[in-house]
């Protein structure tokens, strides 16, 4: 089989053949059993090659996107951290409150019970659990405990995944003292 026929077969298989070339190839195929055999064999090989390569090279859906913590690209492998961030935020708030000594339990003042917490507060759970009222930011300022009962308030913002630590004073005003991003 000559080079010209081989090129025409390749162009046809690749969908790159012109109409004139297609006619030329058809004439050659009628004349040459070798050309017909070559085309049939090449079609078989092409089909198997395409099937094999697509199967092997398809990105595996279960394969994680590259982990690049060092490069600052979070990737899918760190997805679990998104769900743990609120928990970590609450834990950080409790720890901070204990450290600065604002919790009633750390001051041994049995005569003064802590203020009731908002119902949807992640830290709410009665007097035996966390004494730091951490409430979602979108629950509104009216849900804040009475001023004077707590000096430090943790507010976790679900949207920005940030923990706002607010200092409460006796005049019932709140001012952000620190913002911790998680």
């Amino acid at each position: 089989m000559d080079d010209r026929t081989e090129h025409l077969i390749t162009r046809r298989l690749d969908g790159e053949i012109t109409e004139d070339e297609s006619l030329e190839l058809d004439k050659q195929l009628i004349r040459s059993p070798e050309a017909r055999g070559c085309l049939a064999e090449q079609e078989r090989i092409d089909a198997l090659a395409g099937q094999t390569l697509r199967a092997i090279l398809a990105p595996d859906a279960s394969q994680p996107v590259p982990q690049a913590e060092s490069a600052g690209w979070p990737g899918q492998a760190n997805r679990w951290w998104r769900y743990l961030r609120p928990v970590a935020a609450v834990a950080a708030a409790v720890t901070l409150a204990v450290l600065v000594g604002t919790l009633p339990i750390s001051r041994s003042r049995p005569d003064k019970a802590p203020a009731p917490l908002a119902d949807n507060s992640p830290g709410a759970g009665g007097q035996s659990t966390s004494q730091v009222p951490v409430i979602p930011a979108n629950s509104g300022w009216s849900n804040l405990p009475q001023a004077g009962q707590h000096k430090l308030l943790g507010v976790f913002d679900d949207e920005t995944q940030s923990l706002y630590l607010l200092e409460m004073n006796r005049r019932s005003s709140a001012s952000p003292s620190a913002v911790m991003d998680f």
Partner: protein
Amino acid sequence: MIGPEAIRFDDEVERPVIEAIQRGDAHAMNEFVHRNARWVRSVIFGVLGRIRDVDDVTQRVWLKVWREAPRLEDPSRWRPWVYRIARNTATDAGRALKRGREALEQVADRALRAPASNPPPDVEAAAREQQALMLEAIASLPELYREPFVLKHAEGMSYRQIGDLLGLPTDTVETRLVRARRLLREKLAGKV
């Protein structure tokens, strides 16, 4: 012309995503990875000829893309830029791996194992064996011919698209595909 000769890459579509990546948007990067994974893997396999190492090299390529994106001056030229990164990374990896390993047995081994881990219900052992033979034959092609062949058959790229990507005239792409097919016919004669 009957074929897709006139079809070129529409790389402008991806431009906003590239710009977002340059600003450090990780979600854009994930989106970009998922949309471009296969052709990048095809390039890597075309250079390496070893499917076993494609995953590792691909990960390195995406990391480089992420890190170096801010330095890409013209976001509309992202494809040749990514191609160069993929090609260079695969070439470096190929040099390193060549020192300590042999190639073809690993390729055949992987080809036989890969479908078994996620077996399509209608694929029999004979078909898997044929795929392994095919993969081994493709892997044994000279890189010169393997690269356009893989892009053609895995991605269905036109001669012009392959030429744009590899920086070759379409005539050269065609000639390399003719020779790749000739070699495959010789290697696989009577086997598939």
